[in-house]
């Protein structure tokens, strides 16, 4: 697969990620930038669409721009790409059964941890020291 990527990078004309597009106003530009940063470049798989220099990235940026102009919402644009390229194209993992673990485990860990600690703390503090300690506070 590496040769495929290399092929794309070396033979295709280096289409730099710098891509002035004819935005009608600043708000549109900002919206585009946010979107491009949430989409993964499938060729250079560790870059987002905004920074990737691959030819395909340039095409996809143009596509996203055209979809924006056509009045599609962010969700619709993402859906457009996902239905062609798979969820993998999104940097923000969608919430679906396959990603519940991802989205909820950290919170669950905090809650469980807090619970365990609270329990231990309560038990410990049954031996409350008489007064705040004097002497070196540090």
């Amino acid at each position, binding site marked *: 697969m590496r040769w495929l990527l290399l092929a794309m990078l070396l033979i295709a004309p280096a289409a730099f990620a710098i891509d002035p597009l004819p935005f009608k106003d600043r708000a549109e530009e900002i919206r585009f930038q946010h979107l491009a940063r949430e989409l993964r470049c499938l060729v250079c798989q560790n870059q987002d669409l905004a920074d990737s220099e691959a030819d395909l990235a340039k095409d996809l940026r143009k596509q996203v721009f055209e979809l924006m102009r056509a009045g599609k919402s962010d969700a619709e644009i993402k859906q457009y790409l996902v239905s062609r390229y798979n969820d993998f194209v999104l940097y923000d993992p969608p919430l679906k059964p*396959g990603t519940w673990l991802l989205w909820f485990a950290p919170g669950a860990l905090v809650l469980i941890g807090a619970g365990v600690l609270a329990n231990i703390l309560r038990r410990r503090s049954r031996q409350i020291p008489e007064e705040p300690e004097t002497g070196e506070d540090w």
Partner: protein
Amino acid sequence: MLPELGQFALILALLLALVQCALPLYGAWRNNAALIALARPAVAGQCVFVVLAFGMLTYAFLVQDFSVAYVAQNSNTSLPWYYRFPAVWGAHEGSLLLWVLILNIWTVAVATLSRRLPDVLIARVLGVLGFVSFGFLLFTILTSNPFLRHLPALAEGNDLNPILQDPGLIMHPPMLYTGYVGFSVAFAFAIAALLGGELDVAWVRWARPWTNVAWAFLTFGITLGSWWAYYVLGWGGWWFWDPVENASFMPWLVGTALLHSQAVTEKRGSFRAWTLLLSIFAFSLSLLGTFLVRSGVLTSVHAFASDPRRGLFILVFLGTVVGGSLLIYALRAPKVAGGKPFNILSRETLLLINNLMFTCAAAMVLLGTLYPLIGDALGVGRISVGPPYFGFMFALLMIPVVALLPFGPLFRWATADWRATLRVLRPALVLACIATACAKFVAPDLPLRGLAGVAASLWVAIGIALYALKRWREAPAGRRYTPEMLGMIVAHFGVALFLAGVLITEATSIERDLRFAPQESQRIGGLDFAFRGVARVQGPNYLADEGTLEVRRDDRLIATLHPQKRQYAGQQMQSKSDIDPGVLRDVYVALGEAVGSDGAWSVRVYVKPFVRWIWLGGLLMMCGGFTAACDRRFRGSPVRTAETSAAVPDHPVELPA
């Protein structure tokens, strides 16, 4: 001839590492003074040979000996001499040798600076370090030998990746490695304590300065890496939550928890289990990071060439070291929670919350980084986890930490008077609110993140300043601030700067991709950018198109920027941006390509307010770490166990089995 010497030196080092590991550990177990005494000489011997091996490799690079395959793959006759030295660690084999070298330097430091520690303990510490070194040397010799020859010698080598031909490369990996390899010392102390069945906590006092220094280096390494990525990669980003970045961030998070936990264990005798486990986890995450970067299990722009054989070796090593230590922990950890008791409202509780949140943050980063793998394992398809996930979750987890930060130093041990503390902190709260309101008034478009940045950073900064002030007023002159306390103040102030930098930059950065016609001027972020054309420029090993942009504020010339697009000898192109750095804002320009035939070019312009505060914050945290390590209490006379502040648990509490 010399590369073969290097190879031979590695083998000798391996044997000495084996000696360093096996004999002192056995000797400590059997109380055999002769074997125990072998530790330090073995350390010295091993270090000599590792330095020799590293020296041979470096020499091969300096003289450009292309008969050594690794040299041929990573340098080229047009590589300037000053980049030949860092090219040594530019790829897998060499960077591994650097890892081993740095481990040896730490080990020698521990062996030298620990004369006052009990011999049995030191024998165990050096023995554990020897085991780690043995594993890495074995890995190097068996799967990643940098001295392999390519005969007949090539006339010309490949080029070094142009992104790596940069002063940042000279500093970033060595500093980063010094950091995460340094956690092996805390790890070794923890294992030594477990093996020795130490019930008291003297060992924590001795482990603390080493941990602080390692943490400081890691902070520096990460900060450098972030700054380097910012100006080299050309896209204005400073953190990408790339798997390899995460691999260095996870040990940092656990290391931060460890620092704080060690403080509690040393002074109060509590949190022993936390301190032991965090010591093991910090280094385990360093090893895990090594695995992730070199095994090819995750795709990353940063990763070295992957090889399942190497991956398997590191995995087995990881399993042995970490699995072994967790087994030792399961068998030998204190069954009874010791230390002085404390109330629910106390500094101990705050630090417990700190431990919990940082550990959960590290777990979250691990989960997100490994999730694509989990997705494959569970068969739920290709899952992609990126900055939107990490940034969001991390911020969420840090909210309690930031909110509670100023309370930490002000709460007392065991029982805290929260009312009094709130009284002390009231000015911080008030000022933070006022400043946030002003910010909203002055910049109504400021997103929530920016306001949060103002509020959080002021809350933390003023909070810590109020503590410093209180201490100044209440403590007797001459004993106002110990280095440890000073380190804490500086580091926490660094956190405030960091918060301000991150949140304000994210909220207010401007990025524009623009087409500039010759002599055209455009206005971005309150500044006028005038394009003065592009010229061809010759560098030592590249040919570049160099653009000129003049930046003005109200007709006053602030900066002239020269972004380049370079073409290197090896056909690689690199966009070299130019930056006008400033304390309050950076102006950043990258050259795109020629558009049309009238001399117009596409250019990307960034105006990034407060971005330098991110690294300033990191640097302050690093300074805090170094300062704290200098505390006299760590360098005092050999402490007999009865003298430590937390010798015997006063009120033992049964831990759940």
